[in-house]
């Protein structure tokens, strides 16, 4: 990520001469962030939610008093290892493509008897509460750490969903005429000091999905990609996308397929 920042200085900067001089050398701030990012990642509080998520996965809960151990994440009922890196994918039982959290929520509804309304009511973490699907997604994601992303593009619906996701990515609308691509469609740019990876490029798309679910230092809360995309649309000045909706699965299909072949490092730590 920090490499992109340095790149940003070199490539996008032609204006201020005093800055050009600075651009010749590596950005010391970025280097410093990098160094301590490693320190922070060594002990990541995200692991606390992995533990919690594992318990939630294995404990009989909900009106049907069932565990999630029969939940099919695409590799067969109960198979968790490797599943996260191979989603979003098409699920015949719902005849749509689902990302990991969408599938987990689906399982909580069908196997445990929770309702979508109660799960979607306050789906994002606050200082005092981490919703169960967030912990469970963190657990599931951790079981794909070290594996390569391999979101399938075999079923016709998976291909169509990728294509729709790409359209959504480039769709400019809203008060500020923004699309996802406004910030993430060009190499080497940054917003304030934050590097903006170009998600249309395979080598950079990984930055959209790497490190999620992530422990966010701001607020000290655990967030998933459902939250991340929700907040992107807020900053895009769009209305709000539905939690675990097909729109978000489509966008995640576009981003993940673009990252296929790259290694997922597991739950991360975010600014």
């Amino acid at each position, binding site marked *: 990520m920090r490499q992109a920042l340095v790149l940003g200085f070199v490539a996008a*900067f032609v204006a201020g001469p005093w800055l050009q001089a600075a651009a010749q050398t590596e950005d010391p701030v970025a280097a410093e962030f990098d160094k301590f990012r490693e320190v922070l990642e060594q002990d990541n509080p995200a692991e606390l939610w992995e533990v919690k998520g594992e318990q939630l996965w294995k404990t009989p809960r909900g009106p049907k008093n069932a565990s999630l151990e029969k939940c099919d994440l695409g590799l067969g009922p109960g198979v968790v290892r490797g599943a996260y890196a191979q989603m979003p994918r098409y699920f015949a039982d719902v005849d749509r493509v689902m990302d990991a959290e969408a599938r987990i929520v689906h399982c909580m509804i069908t196997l445990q008897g929770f309702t979508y309304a109660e799960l979607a009511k306050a789906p994002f973490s606050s200082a005092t509460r981490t919703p169960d699907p967030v912990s469970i997604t963190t657990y599931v994601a951790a079981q794909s750490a070290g594996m390569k992303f391999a979101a399938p593009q075999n079923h016709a619906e998976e291909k*169509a969903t990728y294509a729709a996701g790409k359209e959504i990515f480039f*769709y400019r609308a809203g008060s500020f*005429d923004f699309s996802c691509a406004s910030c993430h469609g060009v190499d080497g740019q940054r917003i304030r000091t934050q590097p903006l990876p170009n998600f249309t490029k395979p080598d950079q798309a990984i930055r959209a999905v790497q490190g999620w679910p992530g422990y966010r230092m701001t607020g000290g809360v655990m967030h998933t990609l459902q939250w991340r995309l929700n907040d992107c649309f807020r900053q895009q*000045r769009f209305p709000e996308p539905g939690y675990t909706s*097909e729109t978000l699965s489509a966008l995640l299909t576009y981003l993940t397929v673009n990252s296929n072949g790259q290694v997922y490092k597991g739950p991360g730590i975010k600014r």
Partner: protein
Amino acid sequence: MKLTTLAMLAGGAALLASCATGPGGARSDALSMMKRDFHAQGIAGMDRLKEDKVQAACNKYNDNPPKEVAEKLQREQYATVKFPADGKLLGDWKAGEKVAQNGRGMAWNDKGGVGGSCYNCHQIGPATTSFGTIGPSLYQFAKLRGYGADVQRYAYAKIYNAKSYSACSQMPRFGHVGALTDQQMKDLTALLTDRASPVNQ
């Protein structure tokens, strides 16, 4: 709506066997998905998902419309610019700096327009090093371009409706969509074009 179902309905199942995209193509799938999946939140209504003329053209041509289309759009957009009734384009650059720093406004958790988010994308004053690079540097804006009325008018109109000069510019149309008040735009114009502004030192 299931994408395959859409394709089947079109009666083109055989033709589309290897591609489940609906009859209107991926774009139509995407639009119907978004229309169904989004909901109004705070000040952000569902109307925001609809493209206006500029957005439609930029989406259609991948931000690169043919010259004549672009020029027509730019003329139309420039016509939306309402210059201040009192004829004064320069406000207070100090107030402008605050507007430029403020990144809030128009999101569903805002009450309306708040700031200009200028530093998100532009280098402006020399004191702020945490600036974005999505837009060009505006440092020494008038020092490089001149302090005349034409430069002030250009700055004001660009802030009011950036699409007046570049149909598919990534910059929002702050005046056109009511994200900034006349006074805020005057203050920003001063930040960029006032001789006393640190931007021009």
